[in-house]
């Protein structure tokens, strides 16, 4: 296969700074050499490429926007977005790992944690020595996290935690779980560590999507959490929702990368696959499909770029992020399905990345706020009427 040189129909390259381009190129090179050659095998076998964690840490993709004193690179949100884009061009599961570690574990510890918690955990998480996960969703509370039944009760020196979480990326391999539970009816955050008595994290099996990613349940049976493991500044449901904003931001960029992967491979296939004596790229219906995907990539890139600028200026609203997440995931899934059609039967094989991306994007469209919930968040924002209460 030819070297991937990006998809940039609207010359966005001219908007990126030298550092942003260099960061993107370095991650792009990493994805080409380290992820793409091994990912199909992991996907088919249903395993996460754990050997990549130290390498990804060395590259610097865990918590890259956080301060240097914690061993992070302290890059801006354009660079962070480009990192996520390139990782997901490799695989949504690998991007999910980095999103969770960065946006859902390091971000809450940085934002709601004590100085001791930050000093202890952030350098280890940045270096990939420790892996984190985020426990909010429960078997019966997905789109409605406020209804959670996981509960903490104050006891001498700490808390007793009971309940269960589901659909937790990295759960089984995590050293620390950022767990949200109700204490006296109010949502609080706790750092639950691997090996704590009464805590288990069995892996969920049978996925047809995100197969190169670990998805788990978290089970808490009278788990004693020392006072030092509560996130002191997290108070109420707003705290986990702030974390989700970080992750959703990364997803909006990430799925653009998945679209680039399917476009790049569909275009090259269409130019080389001969039917009726000519390349299928010469047929109008194939051209329409390619144009559709390229247009959606370009639209998502423009949304992402301005979203990054708003985020860097501190002017981004959660509804802006909802719009980008909602639009880009929907279009990425459509684009992957359309790309698969260009490949005909060949599209279902692991020789090409399209079916894997397509199956992954089914999850990505649903997780971190379903497509429907983002619609209702935007609906409420423009009408002032919440449709989900």
């Amino acid at each position, binding site marked *: 296969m*030819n070297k991937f040189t990006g998809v940039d129909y609207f010359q966005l390259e001219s908007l990126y700074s*030298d550092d942003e381009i*260099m*960061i993107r190129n*370095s991650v792009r*090179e990493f994805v080409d050499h380290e992820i793409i050659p091994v990912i199909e095998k992991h996907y088919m076998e249903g395993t996460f490429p754990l050997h990549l964690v130290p390498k990804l840490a060395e*590259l*610097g993709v865990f918590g890259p926007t956080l301060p240097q004193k914690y061993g992070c690179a302290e*890059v801006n949100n354009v660079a962070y977005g480009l990192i996520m884009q390139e990782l997901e061009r490799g695989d949504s599961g690998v991007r999910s790992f980095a999103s969770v570690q960065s946006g859902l574990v390091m971000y809450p510890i940085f934002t709601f944690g004590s100085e001791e918690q930050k000093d202890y955990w952030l350098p280890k998480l940045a270096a990939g020595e420790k892996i984190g996960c985020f426990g909010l969703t429960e078997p019966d509370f997905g789109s409605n996290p406020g209804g959670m039944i996981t509960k903490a009760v104050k006891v001498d020196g700490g808390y007793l935690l009971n309940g269960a979480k589901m659909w937790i990326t990295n759960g089984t391999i995590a050293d620390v779980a950022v767990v949200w539970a109700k204490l006296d009816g109010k949502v609080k955050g706790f750092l639950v560590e691997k090996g704590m008595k009464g805590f288990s994290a069995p892996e969920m099996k049978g996925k047809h999507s995100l197969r190169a990613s670990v998805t788990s349940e978290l089970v808490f049976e009278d788990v004693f959490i020392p006072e030092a493991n509560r996130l002191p500044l997290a108070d109420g449901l707003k705290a986990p929702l702030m974390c989700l904003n970080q992750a959703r931001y990364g997803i909006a960029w990430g799925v653009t990368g998945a679209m680039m992967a399917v476009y790049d491979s569909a275009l090259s296939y269409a130019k080389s696959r001969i039917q009726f004596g000519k390349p299928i790229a010469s047929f109008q219906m194939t051209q329409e499909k390619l144009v559709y995907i390229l247009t959606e990539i370009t639209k998502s890139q423009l949304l992402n770029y301005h979203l990054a600028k708003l985020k860097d200026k501190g002017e981004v609203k959660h509804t802006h992020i909802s719009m980008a997440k909602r639009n880009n995931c929907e279009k990425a899934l459509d684009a992957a399905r359309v790309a698969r059609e260009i490949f005909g039967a060949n599209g279902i094989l692991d020789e090409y990345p399209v079916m894997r991306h397509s199956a992954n994007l089914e999850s990505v469209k649903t997780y971190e706020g379903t497509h429907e919930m983002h619609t209702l968040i935007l609906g409420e924002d423009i009408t002032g009427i919440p449709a989900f209460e």
Partner: protein
Amino acid sequence: MKIAVCVSHVPDTAAKINIGADGKTIDPNGVTYVVNPYDEFAIEEALKTKEAAGGEVIAISLGGEANKETIRKALAMGVDSAVLLKDDNYRDSLSVAKALAEEIKAQNAELVFFGKQSVDFDNSVVGQMTAELLNYNCVSVVVSFKLEGNKITAEREIEGGKEVVETSLPAIITAQKGLNEPRYASLKGIMAAKKKTIEEKPAAAAENKVEVLGLKKPAAKQAGKIIGSDATAVPELVRLLKEEAKVI
């Protein structure tokens, strides 16, 4: 110890090259430039040597403003500082070597790494010429390198095998693929590179002994010929391989 690494800025090997209007240079429009791939091995070896033996690594590059992109990549990989010897015009290999030798001397670098060749003009001589000009020892096309005190043990690729050689500092080493696995420029490295200096100075005057008269693209590939699909085509195939392709 001061270690130097000489880096060149070359068209990406995946880029489609067009010849410029003057017929002597390539048209840079739409061409992505990268660090010469062999120089990446040189950078990595310089960094590994510094990490093991201490010292500092300086990158030296000769060319125009655009070379800063390659220099920044070297700095992002971990090189400490850099010098850009500015010259926008064509230079032959000896003229490049003279300018580099002058700077290496000024920097007092005892150990210098080059890529075994630049993938743009492929002359494969600048490292060796520079060594000659400086009266440094030189080992070329190196696939394994070890420095102990003043002593260098290196393996170089030769036709059908490897040659193990021993020499001493000061020395120039030209790197071949296989010498190491170049590191990725990390995000921290990229951010740190912003604070590192690139010293710019005019390159020593060029005295070219070789002039480029023109560039030509290779002849377009001819369409293949199908001479048949069964055993009856074999005599004709043999005749063509003998008389036309002249390969048997």
